């Protein structure tokens, strides 16, 4: 098992190298001149050239690329020009915020979508099936920034149930000590109930926003997969053997239906990681998405490259996890590796 994981990770290296090349070329191909941007609107031609030389942008592209690779190999992801901080530090500070939000949204979506899909599949045409269809349709047709704004409007502005949608904690609570960077976990580890509640309150609305968005593909896939499995021959065998209907449903049908759901889960998760930038904007969430967008607007190369690289790494790790989960569920997948 361990050997297999190492082998897979090594196999992902060429893909990561590809990501490095593509992001390097893409950021250079973007319109906008960072030297001009950082020299300021009043900067003279000389000042701009000076900044350019300082940034190393006066060298040829291959030369820049080799320098970039050398820095990467030394664990130096460059500095953000806007904040002056090393990119790695910035990402490390902001990534937990994004991950916490994404995971919370995903867990919420799974908890709702999978039972919904299973129930809809066992009662096709019943009210629960129609409910499932309505929710999935709404989920795919409502853009996240809209549901985010709507939720904030209703639950913060109109009802006042939720705290103001400004970041991970209200201004009166201090952040828990950094252990994992997940406020919910850190505050629990520290035994700080008040901070936990405060962090949870801030998290609810953005997490629901994300959950609503990914609920649709998950519920739909669960329903379709369950329907397919329930009509399979081996389910008929299980029924003909007189097995209890719940055992047939969960031990025989559900585990078999899980595989495509796992695949979908991996897909929506990686999709969420990068694309929850809108939700981060709406709820002023200090995550990596908003960080990358700001850097992109400023033609700040290093953070953009760092962001894409970090996402690629996460994506590789995530696929590993999904593969391992696959192997746990399906013995045939174990054999292939």
């Amino acid at each position: 098992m361990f050997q297999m994981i190492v082998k897979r990770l090594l196999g992902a290296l060429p893909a990561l190298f590809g990501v490095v090349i593509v992001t390097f070329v893409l950021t250079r191909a973007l319109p906008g001149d960072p030297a001009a941007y950082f020299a300021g609107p009043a900067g003279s031609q000389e000042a701009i050239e000076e900044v350019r030389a300082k940034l190393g942008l006066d060298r040829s592209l291959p030369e820049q690329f080799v320098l970039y690779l050398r820095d990467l190999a030394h664990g130096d992801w460059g500095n953000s020009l806007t904040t002056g901080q090393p990119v790695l530090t910035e990402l490390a500070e902001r990534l937990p915020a994004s991950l916490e939000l994404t995971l919370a949204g995903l867990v919420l979506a799974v908890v709702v979508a999978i039972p919904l899909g299973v129930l809809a599949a066992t009662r096709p045409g019943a009210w629960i099936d129609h409910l499932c269809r309505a929710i999935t349709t709404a989920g795919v047709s409502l853009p996240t920034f809209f549901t985010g704004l709507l939720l904030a409007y209703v639950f913060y502005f109109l009802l006042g149930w939720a705290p103001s949608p400004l970041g991970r904690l209200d201004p009166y609570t201090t952040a828990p000590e950094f252990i994992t960077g997940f406020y919910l976990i850190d505050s629990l580890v520290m035994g700080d109930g008040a901070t936990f509640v405060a962090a949870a309150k801030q998290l609810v609305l953005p997490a629901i926003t994300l959950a609503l968005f990914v609920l649709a593909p998950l519920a739909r896939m669960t329903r379709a997969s369950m329907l397919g499995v329930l009509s399979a021959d081996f389910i008929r065998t299980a029924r003909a053997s007189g097995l209890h209907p719940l055992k047939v449903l969960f031990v025989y049908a559900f585990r078999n239906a899980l595989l495509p759901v796992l695949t979908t889960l991996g897909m929506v998760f990686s999709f969420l990681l990068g694309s929850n930038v809108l939700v981060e904007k709406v709820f002023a969430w200090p995550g990596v998405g908003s960080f990358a967008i700001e850097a992109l607007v400023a033609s700040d190369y290093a953070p953009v490259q760092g962001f894409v690289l970090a996402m690629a790494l996460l994506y590789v790790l995530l696929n590993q996890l999904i593969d391992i989960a696959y192997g746990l569920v399906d013995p045939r997948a174990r054999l292939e590796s």
Partner: protein
Amino acid sequence: MSHTPDALLEVAGLSVDFRTRSGTVHALDKVSLTLASGETLGLVGESGSGKSVLSFAIMGIQDAAARISAGSLHFAGQDLLANRGKAMRTLRGRELAMIFQNPRVALNPIRQVGRQIADVISRHTGVHAAACRERALQCLAEVRIPDPERRYDAYPFELSGGMCQRVMIAIALACKPRLLIADEPTTGLDVTTQAAIMRLIHDLSARRQMSTLLITHDLSLARAYCDRIAVMHAGHIVEVGPSAELFAHPCHPYSERLIAATPHGAAALSALASIPGNLPDLRRDDLPACRFAERCSRYGASCDAALELRPLSATHSVACHRALEDAIPLRLETEHVTSA
């Protein structure tokens, strides 16, 4: 129909309809059948004649769209239609068991085969896990799977088709049922494996005095292993009789054509006669009394009258107004005399 004392399974006037978008399919029409203890009955007929629908109805695992519109089902004196719920579930797998075609897909692909057997044992006996495992291992040995200890943890994809069918049989026979329904148990297996599987089923049913309903479209298989044969066509049972007699002297034109279409021994392929036409569309509301009429060469005006299985002898019945009785009049008469 009166209760025959030694009948284990009694199907009387059973009709099953399927509701589909394009109309109601009259899949079974007043089907009657009895199966004695320890007897092996072959149910033959072309695809779509209702063999599987009948067996699923007996097991109570018919499709959600299927509706039993008439008739009765009795198993060992118990009315199977009266309690379809929990009571039926405890009978299923314990008293009535079934094995299916295509064993590879009829087994749960991601559960060890031994555990699939143990699941059934645990369901019906309630013994603890270790004992279930022990019993499951015995079951594997009984269906002659070599090295059961090792095979217990195998997944279906690691076994050959024949092995999978043995596992299927082990699952079905785990709780020593009194009735086994084998729905084309050898379809999808190669010929030598077919013979081994059939012998296994035959031996086990003989040893346990188990009644077997063998559903097949392979007539030579039915002939070799069944005491009696029931021929189905388009949801009707058209002829029932002792195996040897039915093959030697089929009385229903359909049975005759079916036998003529079966390859055997030295017969050349060109000698095989196909049956003209197709099964009638069972969604029609104007189905003729004899559903074979439109394909029958002996069709005549008298064929439109109401039709039911009528006995030719104590053991042989046919549902045909123009049965091929002339083929065996003498022998039948003498049989009447001897059986009277």
